[in-house]
């Protein structure tokens, strides 16, 4: 499959849609439609998860309600299978907690006329390994 020339638009559009759903507790369960039952991987703060159902179990177990987010940068690249690689750098605030930096990587895989999220890696920008 050829490179998708629309990768920038697709990347930005996906990220906006994804976080609009994620950050609203009423809409968060709908994120399940972004992932594939079998072939979606997530690494959430080091925790490896496979498949839409397990991914949603993780996302709906998070204890905050709303999230405020400021996106600093969205960088995208076209992939040779027609997919899109996206890196997001930003800051988030869960409920009334102090804000945290975060980074998130998505790989969108083409499926018919659309995409699903094949890979999703999330980390807070906290350097506490010392």
């Amino acid at each position, binding site marked *: 499959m050829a490179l998708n020339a629309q990768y920038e638009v697709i990347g930005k559009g996906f990220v906006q849609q994804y976080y609009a759903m994620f950050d609203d507790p009423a809409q968060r369960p709908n994120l399940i439609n972004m992932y594939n039952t079998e072939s979606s991987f997530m690494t959430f703060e080091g925790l490896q998860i496979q498949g839409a159902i397990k991914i949603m179990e993780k996302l709906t177990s998070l204890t905050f309600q709303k999230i405020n987010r400021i996106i600093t940068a969205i960088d995208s690249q076209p992939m040779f299978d027609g997919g899109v690689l996206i890196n997001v750098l930003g800051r988030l605030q869960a409920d009334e907690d102090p804000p945290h930096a975060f980074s998130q990587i998505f790989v969108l895989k083409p499926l018919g006329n659309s995409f699903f999220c094949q890979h999703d890696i999330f980390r807070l920008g906290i350097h*506490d390994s010392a």
Partner: protein
Amino acid sequence: MEYDYLIKFLALGNSGVGKTSFLYQYTDGTFESRFISTVGIDFKEKRVIYQTANGRTQRVHLQLWDTAGQERFRSLTTAFYRDSMGFLLIFDLTNELSFLEVRNWLEQLRTHAYCEDPDIILCGNKSDLEDKRVVSEHKARELAEKHGLVYLETSAATGQNVARAVEILLDRVMRRMETSVDKSLLPHQRVLRCHERDTSPPSTSCYC
């Protein structure tokens, strides 16, 4: 300003139990908060005077460590517990889950703290919300006794028992230090006198 002891306490417990409000209340909202976003630590400082059993006066520089909410995303790392000399384990009297998870916090704490039986004060917070209470004092005391903890019912809103909780913890930690034969078993910061430290600012003595 000089001090005799630098003592670090850690506030633990589920999200939303009032850890930050509790620490804020402790100094009537007057103390400086240092939020270090890159390491996910929020710490507050206060100077107190401690009278030892034999009447000596010690100047204590208290550092009260708080998370920045990262426990909502994953468990806290070992480094967070490091060098802490005492623990305020806080749950919400109006939230059953926060009480049930006290056990998990204890387990974490005993795994990562400097020893297996560190000084811990269990605080049932939000005691002012009596009509919303779901955890009875009896149940909380039972749990505290089982694990050998001091139990207090506190309110970060009204200030009830907040200072007392910190004072009891400080007293236990100071007594432990005085009776400890081998001080090298304690986290190294605890027994450092200030004149033994160099004069670098407090921010460099934290989590780096």
